[in-house]
């Protein structure tokens, strides 16, 4: 017997979870099926809305100003300005105190682990004290065993970027880390549990030892930035404790994968799914679908592969949120680019040598690969007709935008996830 729901969301990244939450908000019975870890584990945990125009102008102070001028087909143009705002306040409601930035339309400039600054619209509370428009002098602290973040270099880089404060960096040993290749989760765990560590002056706790180490380097700075490893489950407590001991504000600098702020956002979203009563199945891929007969094609059910057993999942409405090239919602072979579940149309040049340009940061066609959709976010075929009546797409699986250049990744996932989920929820309830 098939599993039956009002709305089935395929893909459990930012777009899929928000779509499921928005659909549940419309009182629909919702299920989310996701295969592998989402892009959130790679991403910095920042929620960018729009940092640069497609032409490269920016950093934009006000992203909403620029939304109106986006070209036809851009996901924001499809859903409209108002929906972007609604989606953000929907997110603010879910994230609560964990995220900041909702008090203003202006973008924030967040220092990155490479030492640049990056415009973003919502940032975790842990990065709030580090914003580059805050003119307080800053001490950045790196660790000998974490080569991704070279604090003195990052400080010099911030200065070169014109940041309005003095930044200084130091590299110290992280108390309690004995292996040169300890995972970032090991650092977080030490601090979460405030484990006992050995130092030159005897045994103490991890937080006390770290604060002691940093205090020796602190001069007049009133804030201290660390790579984003300050705790996982108890990140707020770790930060508050360190701030208390040092007598200054403490913040995190977002890092590359595996990214703790990204994982924290993922945990927050999955907790919200549970609260909203969304049924979640992870670790299983959707591999196929069946249509029912009739005019415009309608998806009757999809097929989920559960350890080799094919199980049909039926719903009234479907949301495709399987991600882009990174999440594997868009795939490619030597001859073609395609969407693997429903074989929705993905426009792309026939010659694969036209998929890229020679400048690594140039205007990369591959970065825009994805599905074209109508204003209801329903995928369109090569003739601009609906692929299916009851399928919507959201997030990185959509085409027509380069999230990396624009700094619009999570914002597009939020806005389109919200709209797709809400429409699917209302439609299913009819």
């Amino acid at each position, binding site marked *: 017997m098939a599993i039956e729901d009002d709305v089935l969301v395929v893909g459990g990244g930012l777009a899929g979870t928000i779509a499921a939450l928005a659909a549940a908000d419309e009182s629909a019975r919702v299920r989310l099926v996701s295969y592998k870890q989402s892009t959130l584990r790679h991403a910095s945990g920042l929620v960018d809305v729009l940092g640069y125009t497609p032409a490269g102008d920016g950093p934009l102070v006000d992203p909403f100003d620029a939304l109106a001028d986006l070209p036809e087909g851009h996901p924001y143009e499809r859903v409209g300005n108002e929906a972007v705002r609604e989606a953000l306040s929907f997110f603010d409601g879910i994230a609560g105190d964990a995220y900041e930035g909702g008090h203003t339309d202006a973008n924030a400039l967040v220092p990155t682990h490479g030492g640049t600054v990056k415009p973003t619209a919502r940032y975790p509370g842990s990065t709030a004290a580090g914003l580059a428009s805050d003119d307080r002098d800053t001490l950045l602290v790196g660790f000998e065993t974490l080569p991704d973040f070279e604090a003195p270099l990052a400080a010099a880089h911030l200065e070169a970027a014109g940041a309005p404060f003095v930044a200084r960096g130091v590299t110290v040993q992280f108390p309690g880390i004995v292996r040169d290749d300890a995972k970032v989760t090991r650092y977080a765990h030490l601090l979460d549990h405030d484990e006992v560590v050995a130092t030159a002056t005897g045994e103490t706790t991890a937080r006390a030892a770290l604060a002691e180490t940093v205090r020796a380097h602190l001069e007049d700075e009133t804030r201290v930035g660390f790579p984003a490893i300050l705790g996982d489950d108890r990140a707020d407590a770790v930060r508050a404790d360190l701030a208390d001991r040092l007598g200054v504000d403490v913040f995190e600098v977002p890092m590359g994968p595996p990214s703790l702020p990204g994982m924290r956002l993922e945990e927050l979203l999955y907790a919200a799914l549970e609260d909203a009563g969304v049924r979640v199945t992870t670790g299983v891929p959707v591999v196929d679908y069946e249509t029912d007969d009739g005019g415009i094609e309608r998806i009757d059910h999809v097929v989920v592969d559960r350890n080799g057993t094919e199980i049909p999942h039926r719903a009234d409405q479907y949301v495709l949120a399987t991600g882009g090239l990174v999440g594997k919602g868009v795939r490619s072979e030597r001859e073609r680019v395609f969407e693997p579940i429903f074989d929705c149309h993905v426009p792309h040049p026939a010659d694969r040598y036209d998929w890229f340009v020679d400048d690594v940061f140039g205007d990369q066609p591959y970065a825009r690969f994805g599905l074209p959709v109508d204003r209801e976010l329903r995928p369109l075929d090569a003739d601009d007709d609906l692929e299916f009546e009851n399928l919507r797409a959201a997030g990185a699986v959509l085409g027509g935008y380069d999230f*990396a250049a624009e700094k619009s990744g999570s914002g597009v996932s939020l806005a389109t996830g919200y709209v797709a989920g809400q429409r699917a929820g209302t439609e299913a309830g009819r």
Partner: protein
Amino acid sequence: MARDTEVLVLGGGSTGCGIARDLAMRGLEVTLVERGTLTDGTTGRMHGLLHSGGRYAVSDQASATECIQENEILREIAGHCVEETGGLFVQRPEDPDDYFREKLEGCRECGIPARVLSGSEAREVEPYLADDVKRAIEVPDGAVDPFRLCVANAIDAETHGARIETRAEVVDLLRDDDDIYGVEVRHESGPGKHTHATAGTTEKITAEYVVNATGAWAGQIGAMANLEIAVRPSKGVMTIMNVRQVDTVINRCRPKGDADIVVPHETTAILGTTDEEVADPDDYPEEQWEVDAMIDTLSDLVPILAEARTIRSFWGVRPLYEPPGTGTQDPTDITRDFFLLDHAERDGVSGMASIVGGKFTTYRMMAEQISDHVCEKLGVTATCATADEPLPGSENVEILEAGMDDFGLRSPVARRSKQRLGSRARDVLETDEPNPVICQCEGVTRAEIRDGISQSGTDLNAVRIRTRASMGNCQGGFCCQTMANELHPTYDEETIREALDELFQERWKGERHALWGEQLSQAMLNYALHATTMNRDRDPASESSTVDFAAFDDGRGAQ
């Protein structure tokens, strides 16, 4: 008139470095100039097959005999740069029996140990060979690391007093009537190690004798003194797979053709190659059909290649040469032998000889013959010792194996680092400081990166070549920035930023020819990491306009 140096060698490929080592060991004063980094030319862009000679056993027995002799010498003097993989010449049902027989006889005539394996025996050696493979001839082919071998020659030349100048492009030959007495070079950033910040200078270097070992570029050098050297550069593609599907060199046993060799290298396998004459060795088309041909043709021998993930493709140009008047049409028919052009004899211009053609495998023998020639010209009597003296890093391999535990290094990382560093492993890796892994894909640690930097300065591409860092599955997406971090605090922020940009762009260049499937997904991830997470594409530090920080959210309105 006193000259700056006795012998001036142009070109820092295997030929030039081999000559520099040979002459320096004979006690001559040598200067070598190279326009890029060592191995920047064909030597850094070749297949890495240490020929047994089997490939030439039918068509060119003189070359085949030289190959097996040099193959045996290199195993002795450069064991740490060679992997003794063995090789198979594999016959498919449609490949001619006659040729198989000629190949086997040819190997025996040239002194190449050869043994016939049945189809099933061959599949026992290499399980991924196609089911219908008919038979194979086993020969002592090997995999050679051209970067390490070339660098080892250069280091040894320096030890014997030679001056090695990289980033020094020859811009003119100094000619006085019918005598060439030196060159003018342009230092890209001043003499010595390459750093990005220093301004360029030019220098005239005079010498008793000039050796033009610029390979495919030899014609350009000749033209500077109105000498015609008809090099016929011929390009070839090599495609790198993400895993090592075979442990043996796999050759197709048929007369000739593109895409007929797979060479295992460290954790990868490299497919090759094509053979197409090009007009300009610095600017030629890198074509899609070439990459497709590698996969389509070689999957006849090793079917899983069709489904496997390719990491990237790269191209090199062979410095082929024909004596005037030979007129061979097809570049695959041009001899692989090398030629020593004595311009005094040939053109009536004294003071210089040019070397063209040849193979990597026989670089040492070529260097010996050229060095003999130079000594004769300069009236020096000294004999060649390069066949007997091990290259730096190769002595005491067993002691090194045993000393492994002392380093306290975890196995896969250490084993490979140690192979890369040879006898220098202890000096480099034994450190009291934390030594985290910088490049996860290839297992390269901080100590090794820093060692590379101490030798190559801010040229991270040279560090990459020395260490293999950034050459694995992720193609540097995850580690380029971490490698650049290691330049700090020796170099300043702006210099480091430029070095990182240069490395990241260079990594992208090679990746472009493997952009589908997993590798396209990887490219998007790398792009996101550098552009989204770090905003390196619009870094305010590198942009001309300034940012109005005060206009943005400072976080203070939040509470």
